[in-house]
């Protein structure tokens, strides 16, 4: 059995420490030790995007990273996106307004992907939006509401700056 490693990383602004075998994925560390159960695990092999988190500001699949690899990194999960408990992030607000979700399983991954996408591309065309969300799968909505939400969030984020 491989040795347990001690782990330390910043999750949503707080230092989180834990332990695990090298094969422990970042997704499982975040869910089971940092208790960020908004990190949803769908396929565990990089296809669905539901486990997306921000690592040092970039959207990544947390099921394709081992927790040891994120030692010292700065992680944001859906729990840490909103500025305070009373306020939603503009992307969260837009998903609620535009029916960007039904069952909600895919939603945390979409929200973080869209937040990172709009950071890099604040004024996307509808075609760019569809490419931007192509790495996340949703079995419920048919995507129209998600595209609309992304459009609304883009406008809100531009207006907010």
């Amino acid at each position: 059995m491989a040795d347990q490693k001690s782990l330390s990383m910043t999750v949503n602004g707080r230092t989180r420490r834990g332990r695990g075998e090298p094969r422990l994925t970042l997704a499982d560390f975040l869910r089971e030790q940092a208790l960020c159960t908004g990190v949803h695990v769908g396929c565990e092999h990089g296809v669905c995007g539901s486990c997306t988190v921000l690592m040092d500001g970039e959207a990544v699949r947390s099921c394709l990273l081992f927790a040891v690899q994120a030692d010292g990194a700065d992680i944001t999960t859906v729990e840490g996106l909103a500025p305070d408990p009373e306020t939603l992030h503009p992307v969260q607000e837009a998903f609620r307004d535009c029916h960007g979700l039904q069952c909600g399983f895919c939603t945390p991954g979409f929200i973080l992907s869209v937040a990172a996408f709009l950071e890099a591309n604040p004024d996307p065309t509808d075609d760019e939006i569809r490419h931007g969300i192509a790495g996340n799968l949703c079995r419920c909505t048919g995507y129209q509401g998600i595209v609309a939400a992304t459009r609304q969030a883009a406008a809100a984020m531009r207006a907010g700056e």
Partner: protein
Amino acid sequence: MKPAPFDYHAPESVAESVALLDEHGDDAKPLAGGQSLVPMLAMRLTRFEHIVDLNRVDELFGVAVGNGGVRIGAMTRQAVVETDAAVAERVPLLHLASPHIGHFQIRNRGTIGGSVAHADPASEYPAVMLALDGVAEIASASGTREASAAEFFESTFMTAVAPNELLVALRFPSWERPAGFAFDEIARRSGDFALAGAAVGIGTDGQGRINRAAVGMLGVGPTPRRAASVEAALMGLAAADADAAEIGRLAADDMDPVGDVHASAEYRRRAGSTLVGRVLADALAQLRKEAGDG
């Protein structure tokens, strides 16, 4: 869907990395972006006693210009290759191919070295490397060596890099201008692995005659392929007279497609050769634009 246990190593230099690979041989595997290796470990398609994580080996990252081309460290992320200004200017095909790789979240982690070392025949960078006669720099405990793209891709998922070796960097030549470059592929959905794809570069002499032609193809054989018939037909032609669709059809002879659940061999051959014609037309249009501007 959990990988089998392994020992984790996080070397900080190439020397340390190759020493680990040398010590553990077939039981060790380098981990780059993990976007292909980790799914394979999770599905237990493969397992290794020792994982050698390259993510803290600083000397494997980055783009350097020199010696008539660009040298890209193996650990350079696909997202960096996609947006790097020197790559876009000097090796446009890498820039054009990058957005076709998976999704932006994949490219944030996936590396150019990992793409090439993984050698999926439907993958974009291997076809570009082959088209442009790229060179691989390979290190082992006993020294360094080079492999040309033609000798690098041995068969599906098999390359010239031995288990005790490390791919360190890739070198791509920059072309004299004016030149035209284009890349495109056919995929069922955005971000899927391509059913067929083509990377084309065309260069001309002062009189507008084609004196350089590079055509790489993906998804149409057990390895990336070059469309040698298309290249031969283009050489010496006046660029203005080249009938792209007609010449593109010759590519069918350079393919060795494998049918699978995604597309039959015959579909790949027909769609692929039509695609080569279209991408060639785009490259010629690009060339005219550059020659006009220049």
